[in-house]
């Protein structure tokens, strides 16, 4: 293509570089072929995630109110934090590729290390998020995966803990959903017989059982210790630094409550009122929609889980690259693996760029 290229080709016949495979003429040709292959692979990755995004789009398109309700269980702070972490690690990765191109080995290793730290932070936050949701489930002791089973998760607090039955958030939820649950608890007991003695036959029965237990705990303690009215009008906390505190109910619930005068209003009413916050509560969902809440979490876990798997794979690749870099494998004439792993890492970032607003910022 150019004289520089031709010179290089002649040169490589004299002294063949060890990195150059026999079926390539020049390192440049090998590099651009490898890069083309990587881009083709990245395209298939995007198509694979495209399937999940499609599932997301269809379920959100057909059940917007379910998504609007369920996304309150995700913590925007952690989502945004992870976005920043991934962006920063993308920067250090791109910087590392630059360092490899310029033959700066110490800088390359440092940048790969920083990228790895970014990946670790991301996974730690993911672990916190996942284990919070896991706790909600296991604390019910029902053995059924309640979020998946779509059972009544109205007592779950947003990223909060269920260990303290007098937690404010639960009390708020309780206050709002008491009437609804009283009605349903009766219906369930009638259907399922004596749940307290008989071993539960199905997952559905187990989760109903768990919900009734939770109901009783809150009933006994919350009623005497908390003034519902003052709790509900309390302004939502803006300081999100202490995430592990007993969290409030899903954001905006209290505002919605004032706004409709204490009577749960259907989703459409809230949305049309145009008061800045259209909030969907558990009561706004009909029975069918309540059953569909699990779909949001299925999609959430599938998408973030597959993405998290990619982060882990990327971290493994970066470790491998870092070890090779320490041995001095890369320089200005050969840095293809650094570049390709960098592309992979950026793709992970790219997918998160779409996941974050779609899962955490539903409006």
């Amino acid at each position, binding site marked *: *293509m*150019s004289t*520089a290229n031709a010179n*290089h080709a002649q040169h490589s016949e004299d002294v063949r570089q060890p990195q150059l495979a026999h079926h390539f003429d020049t390192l*440049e*040709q090998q*590099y*651009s072929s490898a*890069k*083309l292959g990587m*881009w*083709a692979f*990245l*395209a*298939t990755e*995007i*198509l694979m995630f*495209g*399937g999940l*995004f*499609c599932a997301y*789009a*269809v*379920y959100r*398109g*057909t*059940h917007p109110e379910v998504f609007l309700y369920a996304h309150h269980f995700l913590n*925007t702070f952690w989502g*945004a934090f992870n976005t*920043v972490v991934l*962006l*920063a690690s*993308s*920067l250090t*990765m*791109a*910087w590392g*590729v*630059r360092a490899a*191109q*310029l033959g700066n080995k110490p800088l390359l290793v440092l940048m790969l290390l920083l990228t790895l730290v970014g990946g670790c932070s991301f996974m730690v936050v993911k672990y916190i998020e996942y284990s919070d949701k896991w706790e909600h489930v296991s604390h019910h002791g029902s053995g059924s995966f309640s979020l998946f089973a779509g059972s009544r998760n109205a007592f779950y607090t947003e990223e909060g803990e269920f260990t303290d039955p007098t937690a404010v958030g639960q009390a708020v939820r309780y206050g709002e959903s008491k009437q609804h649950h009283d009605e349903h608890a009766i219906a369930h007991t009638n259907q399922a017989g004596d749940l307290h003695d008989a071993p539960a036959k199905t997952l559905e029965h187990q989760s109903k059982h768990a919900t009734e237990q939770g109901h009783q705990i809150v009933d006994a303690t919350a009623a005497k210790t908390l003034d519902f009215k003052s709790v509900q009008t309390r302004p939502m906390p803006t300081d999100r630094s202490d995430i592990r505190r007993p969290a409030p109910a899903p954001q905006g619930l209290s505002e919605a409550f004032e706004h409709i005068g204490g009577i749960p209003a259907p989703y459409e009413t809230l949305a049309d009122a*145009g008061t*800045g*916050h259209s909030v969907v509560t558990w009561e706004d969902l009909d*029975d069918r929609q309540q*059953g*569909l809440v699990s779909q949001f979490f299925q999609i959430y876990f599938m998408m973030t889980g597959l993405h998290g798997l990619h982060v882990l794979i990327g971290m493994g690749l970066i470790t491998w690259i870092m070890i090779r870099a320490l041995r001095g494998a890369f320089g200005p*004439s050969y840095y293809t693996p650094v*570049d390709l792993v*960098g592309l992979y890492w*950026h*793709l992970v970032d*790219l997918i998160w*760029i*779409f996941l*974050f*607003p*779609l899962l955490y*910022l539903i*409006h």
Partner: protein
Amino acid sequence: MPQIHADSPSHDEPHAVPLRILFAVFIALLFFTFLTVAVTWVDLGSLNLWIALAVAVIKAAMVCLYFMHLRWDSPFNGFIITISFIFVALFIGLALLDSVEYQPNYQKPSIATDTGGG
């Protein structure tokens, strides 16, 4: 700095992306992340989703062009990735057309009384 990719379509450009550009892109990405969160503080109806998506596409384009070097890369690589995005959009768009079209039928109690399915 050695010119290592003479066969690149733009061999005048240095291939190592200048730090200035990397940091500028990073700052812009942070800004857009803040923007996408800030947009949710205002209720703009269905516009919220489209703004969030537009911001995400801008961010993705910046990552592709600068962090992933597509701006200086062979156009064919950019072509591949663009095509894959277009096909995903096509896939989702057609699926949405279909499911949104028939969803009202599912929600009629006379047709679907069971809570299963979707």
